[in-house]
């Protein structure tokens, strides 16, 4: 039997003895005992040692006071002394205080129900002393579990050891012991109003309304403004929040990392000699704890390793990253779940894959705003053309008043990057812009050939992430490097609620334009649009019709909404 098995058996035995074992754990103990007689012998010996420790006097004095073992004779003397006084204690019969009154004849009596009861009463009275002596140690102290936190959300979770269902709204108490999250992400609101998010694999335990122990895994904590004192204990260290946000990572060997995202926290460790060492961490600082040595080591801050917001309804997991609008175009949640090369047809607002296109445009625009119904974060799409007056750019009727006249033609859909075969029988190529490939999620971009527009619903995003504020839209834009290269010439537009906040007209190849627009909580829609630039020199179709969209491989590169947690 290995030392690890013995340790595990000991843990299971102790848990069982303390009524703190799950059915699964007891089954594990049963399996150990089934395995071989050696394990059974070990189990018997451990139980006997437990009994000896529990009943014996070996541990009643502090270690420095332990000089000689307690002699059995001493025990007997004290018991005899106790017993000598025993009759006085049980004289409740009020007649003969010096003696124990008992009806001896019960021993010979036939057993009848009523007599048996009264007999028991007498026996119990008589034996009270014995029980007092023998069993006073056995009286269990029952704990009343106090709920101290609530499970507020979870995504794709699997729990290893919970007794009951773990659903939204489940109250957690300190009596539940360690919880093991083997899969997914779970969010809890502690009763001190600190939100914590745990990411699998993790083992943790609620200790108090403002204290959690993390045995391993990743934990993110954000406290209410002006609230301090939320504490995370890890093997060998303690982190006490002094305001706002931090992440703690503990690996299975107990090595702890603390990343201070905002505000301050106190990190304390105790080495093997119980000498304490502490440090105050401030924003963007990180430390690795070496508990055995009692030291901290400075780390590169990696706050984005921690999930800070989840929304199971939207399958949304936020690690502090900005929201990627290209990913949303690809059907994702803005954090990398979208499909690269997935596009939206401005005529139907439906999705399609660039790789399945059988024929490129030009196509004629629908002359109307097309609402998108399959993604909450996208309000709709359109082909901008100001020939007939202002262009509708949202479902609530906001307009792009200064939209230039265009040819109302477009070449393909609005896509989440991807590869373009041009011509269609050529091998597909990545989209290149400023010598960077934008075909992947790593370098994402919204590819929108000229005369396309898309409106994002910022309120829908806020609704999905209620604790997050959108602070800014950032991107850069221009014509891709690897387009046909004939006559690229296009306009780029960014509008917020119909207000033109950014525009670059007549953009040709080889230029890159930064976009950084503040977004307020009142802003509802963000619109990105490209127009054809109205150039005269361009490809002509049959019949000598000019096509000003020719070669306009427009890209909004790295289009991000910058997010911050609300304070």
């Amino acid at each position, binding site marked *: 039997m290995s030392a690890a098995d013995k340790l595990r058996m000991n843990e299971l035995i102790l848990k*069982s003895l*303390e009524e703190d074992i799950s059915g699964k754990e007891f089954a594990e103990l049963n399996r150990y005992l089934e395995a071989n007689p050696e394990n059974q012998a070990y189990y018997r010996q451990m139980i006997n040692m437990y009994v000896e420790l529990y009943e014996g006097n070996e541990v009643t004095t502090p270690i420095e006071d332990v000089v000689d073992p307690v002699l059995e004779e001493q025990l007997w003397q004290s018991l005899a002394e106790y017993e000598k006084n025993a009759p006085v204690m049980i004289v409740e019969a009020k007649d003969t205080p010096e003696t124990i009154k008992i009806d001896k004849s019960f021993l010979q009596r036939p057993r009848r129900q009523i007599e048996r009861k009264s007999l028991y009463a007498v026996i119990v009275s008589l034996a009270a002393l014995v029980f007092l002596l023998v*069993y006073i140690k056995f009286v269990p102290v029952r704990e009343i579990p106090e709920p101290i936190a609530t499970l507020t959300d979870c995504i794709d979770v699997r729990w290893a050891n919970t007794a009951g269902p773990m659903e939204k709204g489940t109250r957690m108490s300190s009596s539940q012991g360690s919880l093991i999250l083997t899969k997914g992400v779970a969010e809890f609101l502690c009763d001190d109003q600190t939100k914590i998010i745990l990411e699998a694999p993790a083992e*943790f335990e609620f200790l108090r309304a403002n204290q959690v122990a993390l045995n391993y895994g990743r934990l993110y904590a954000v406290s209410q403004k002006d609230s301090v004192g939320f504490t995370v204990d890890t093997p060998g260290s303690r982190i006490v929040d002094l305001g706002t946000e931090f992440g703690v990572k503990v690996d299975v060997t107990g090595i702890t990392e603390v990343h201070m995202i905002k505000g301050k926290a106190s990190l304390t460790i105790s080495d093997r000699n119980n000498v304490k060492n502490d440090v105050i961490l401030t924003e963007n600082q990180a430390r690795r704890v070496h508990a055995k040595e009692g030291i901290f080591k400075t780390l590169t801050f990696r706050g984005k390793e921690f999930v800070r917001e989840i929304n199971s309804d939207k399958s949304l997991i936020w690690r502090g990253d900005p929201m990627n609008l290209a990913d949303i175009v690809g059907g994702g949640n803005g954090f990398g779940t979208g499909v690269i090369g997935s596009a939206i047809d401005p005529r139907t607002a439906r999705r399609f894959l660039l790789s399945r296109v059988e024929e490129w445009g030009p196509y004629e625009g629908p002359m109307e705003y097309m609402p998108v119904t399959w993604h909450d974060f996208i309000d709709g799409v359109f082909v901008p053309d100001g020939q007939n007056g202002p262009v509708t750019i949202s479902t609530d009727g906001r307009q792009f008043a200064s939209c230039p006249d265009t040819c109302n033609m477009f070449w393909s859909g609005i896509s989440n990057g991807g590869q373009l075969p041009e011509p269609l029988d050529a091998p597909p190529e990545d989209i290149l812009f400023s010598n960077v490939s934008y075909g992947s999620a790593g370098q994402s971009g919204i590819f929108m050939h000229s005369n396309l527009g898309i409106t994002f619903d910022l309120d829908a995003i806020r609704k999905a992430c209620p604790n997050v504020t959108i602070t800014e839209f950032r991107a850069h834009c221009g014509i891709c490097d690897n387009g046909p290269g004939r006559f690229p010439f296009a306009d780029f537009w960014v509008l917020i609620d119909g207000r033109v906040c950014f525009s670059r007209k007549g953009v040709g190849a080889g230029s890159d334009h930064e976009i950084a627009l503040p977004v307020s909580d009142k802003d509802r829609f963000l619109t990105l649009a490209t127009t054809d630039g109205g150039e005269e020199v361009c490809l002509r179709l049959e019949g000598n019709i000019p096509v000003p969209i020719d070669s306009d491989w427009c890209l909004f590169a790295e289009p991000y909404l910058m997010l911050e947690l609300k304070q």
Partner: protein
Amino acid sequence: MANNQYEKLKYKEFLRLILEHKSRIYGYILRLIPNRAVADDLMQETTLVMWEKFHQFEKGTNFPAWGIQIARFKVLQYRAATKNSPIRFNQDVFNSLASPIESDHYQENQKVQALENCLRKLSKRDHKLIQLRYAEKQKIKNIAINLGWSSGMTYKLMAKIHYILKECIEKRLSISRAVE
């Protein structure tokens, strides 16, 4: 008066025997039902029956074996009443554990002595934990809360301390056997 005298003597005798052998009977119950609260109740019931039937006990015969017989009956009753509980040994394991083995008992003086010595060898922290658990009768979960530790960690630590004690006892016993 004679009756009273008889009862007092009988009571003293019962007290002496139960105090001497209670650990063994209790240990037997606990190994079959490793739940201290339940084992306490069963021990109490066992003792009641033992007192009730003490007149049947023949002086000079094996008191703990007699007590274990009664305890076994109580344990079987409890198992029958909780047959659907997941916290229950299967029948094979139960049968195997239910057979008394004389040699594994810690009340043997040598083992008790070894345990005492091994307790002295513990580090201050480990000894303190053992004290909190066994002298102050605190549950491990409460110890964890009071020390601000997680109960998972505290259980693991307690398991380790018990392992250390067990290994230490075995070592001491093997040395003393070799000396003898």
